[in-house]
């Protein structure tokens, strides 16, 4: 069971158990599926309906990774039924050993990297809070992950000498955002048009919605008060180099 980090302080009360977070209330990409061609409709429908079973991680590894993912890409504001699966997508990639086309020379293979990190994170939890990572409070978990984000593991752990922490962090983030933002519920949350073939778009300028899209309805949205993962001004990571394989490339 995932641990919740509450309360949310927002105008109009707590933001939790939402069917659809974000500013595009009532917008549904899946409602447009009849306008997509078959190949795309099949891929997206499968993503929604067929969540792969955990095959790569052991039970304890999976529990720890689930706790990590709950903090790295938290979904406490979503209802249980509308939680987007992330761990199963990561697990499937590692099980199939599906690569993204390269490995940094100072990094172990992706599978080893995750296993090393799991071990290191749990050792950090024991070292700093005398408890396994999964049993820490949400705040304690965030403190440990924040130190990885900052590239300065606290407490220091020898395992991070065998793998650059910033590269692992970038890979973890890449895996998490790939699973989350490729899901139609996330598209509804951010107001992305989703698949658009064969219909296409007709209103290209001025951020105008298509007839089937929704206009933005903003309201005050706040992360949980005790969260340390909210954006900060000076938060860009220390390494300024290409850390991932994609991009809205030229």
């Amino acid at each position, binding site marked *: 069971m995932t641990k919740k980090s509450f309360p949310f302080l927002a105008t109009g009360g707590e933001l939790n158990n939402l069917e659809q977070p974000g500013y595009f209330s009532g917008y549904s990409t899946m409602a447009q599926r009849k306008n997509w061609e078959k190949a795309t409709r099949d891929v997206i429908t499968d993503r929604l309906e067929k969540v792969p079973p955990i095959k790569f991680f052991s039970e304890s590894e999976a529990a720890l990774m689930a706790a990590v993912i709950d903090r790295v*890409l938290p979904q406490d504001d979503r209802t249980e039924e509308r939680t987007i699966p992330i761990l199963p997508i990561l697990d499937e990639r590692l099980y199939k050993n599906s690569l993204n086309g*390269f490995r940094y020379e100072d990094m172990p293979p992706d599978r080893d990297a995750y296993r090393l990190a799991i071990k290191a994170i749990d050792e950090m939890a024991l070292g700093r809070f005398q408890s396994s990572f999964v049993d820490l409070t949400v705040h304690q978990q965030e403190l440990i*992950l924040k130190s990885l984000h900052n590239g300065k593991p606290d407490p220091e752990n020898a395992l991070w000498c065998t793998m650059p922490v910033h590269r692992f962090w970038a890979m973890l983030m890449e895996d998490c955002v*790939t699973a989350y*933002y490729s899901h139609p519920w*996330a598209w509804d949350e*951010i107001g992305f048009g989703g698949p658009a073939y064969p219909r296409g778009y007709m209103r290209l*300028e001025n951020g105008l919605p298509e007839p089937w899209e929704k206009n933005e309805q903003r309201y005050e949205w706040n992360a949980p008060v005790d969260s340390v993962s909210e954006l900060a001004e000076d938060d860009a990571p220390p390494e300024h180099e290409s850390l991932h394989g994609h991009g809205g*490339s030229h």
Partner: protein
Amino acid sequence: MTHRLGPMQTLPSPMRKFADHDVVDYCIVGVGSAGGVLVQRLARAGFRVVGLEAGPFWDTEKDWVSDEKGSHELYWNDLRITGGTHPLALGANNSGKGVGGGSVHWAAFAPRFHPSDFRVYTEDGVGADWPMSYWDLKPYYELLEREIPVAGPAWFPWGDPHGHPYGPHPLGGVGDVLVRGCTKLGIRSVAGGPVAILSGSHGDRPHCIYRGFCLQGCKVGAKASTLITHVPDAITHGAEVRAHSMASRISLREDGRVEGVLYLDREGKEHFQRARAVIVSGYAIETPRLLLNSACPGHRHGLANSSGTLGKYLMAQAGNVVAGRFEELIRLYKAPPAHALSEEFYETDPHRGFARGFAVQTVGPLPVAFAKQMTAAMGAWGWGMRRVMMDYNHWATLGVLGEILPWEDNRVELADERDQHGLPVAKVTFNLHDNDKKLIQFGENKVMEIMRAAGAKQVVQESRFAHLVGAVRMGSDPSNSVVDRFGRTHDIPNLFVCDGSILPTQGSANPGLTIQALAARTADYLIKQGDAVFFSNRRDLTEPGIRYDLSPSYTRFKGNPRIA
């Protein structure tokens, strides 16, 4: 069943199949941007041609989807090792796999190189000169702009000013930001191209529908890839394109000439394709890798490597992405990512304190790509990531496309590790040098300034790289280059290289159009040389003269428009 290449186009059938014991005239390794044009030209000229492609032969209706994650298979995902002070991200960033190669997932910006790009050493004392001039390539630029064809402004003011055969595309939100910001600062910009995407229907290809999934393979068939522009014509004219064929080694005869190509099929079974000449078109990593993996007695350090420069002088362009958050909605996912640019900073300006320059271009990351950029640019994670992504529709993104010079220490070598075929994988080393760093810093600041001038309230940037060229450099001196001005290796008379890897420098223009133009020119050269390529060691270095009768159907226009 019909093999679809878009809503209107189908693959010509049946495709000719050569038998294992057949000796073909040309075996082309890699059917991407260059390989696609080569097989088409050579087949039309009557040669017996086989193209070996490591990846699949896409059926665009079945295999491609309007979805970021679902498009993973378009990229070269096999293991490569990347290192150096500024390691390059590979895979989806710059490497395609499957018929059409990188042209399947390019954004399709199609600017020409400037005349100065061919004389960088002479003009700036850095980099290298090309063994040819812009004017040698110009007629091929014009021809390919008609064949692909390229949409864009009727007046493109930079480099050698020119127009484009198809009209410009309508402006999207991000293009509007670029034009607005540049205009505020007195910087010239163009919009609606140049981009190899149809703004009007063209033969059996429909026009663009502005869905924004250019990088995921254009199901519409509006964006040019050699899969749909040249390969069908090649097959109509008797070429065979053999998919799932991973070249493992080029073998030589006793007389030192190439005998053929060993390759592995889908099941890992080894085959040998005999050919009277071989052209390697595997792009900047797989081409040097294959030549290095083909080392043999007499070529201990790789085929055609007597100069010791094989694998060296690899280049990527600086591809920093600047993201700006606006109060108003942008919806950056609409319209082609590539649709407005400025080349105002392309040429060397001595006042800036570094050689060469950069372009400013629109980019259009879809949600997954944008979230990754926010990881790097803002350090976003946790609730911060959720929050910044909820504002996805408020952000616009512009790219720096900066010229990084060719340096000997930026290189492709073989790693100790092996891929799923048991072949040593490539190890790529990339370091930025002083001139590159100054150029990137200046370009990054300039694009951030443009973003602010356009009205962005918050501006962040991510350092990254785009495109890959070099590593099998073309030159007139066999002691410091691998191939001559037509792509023929200095060492082996019937072994050619034709792809982005032969570029001596890269300018600040996206390389796709230049690679295809070079391929058409090399094809004309080979056709003019005729059988001499197969038997003679004589090296004729005169321009072949352009052939206008070898273009695919539907592409014969009277000429390129030119205003003023």
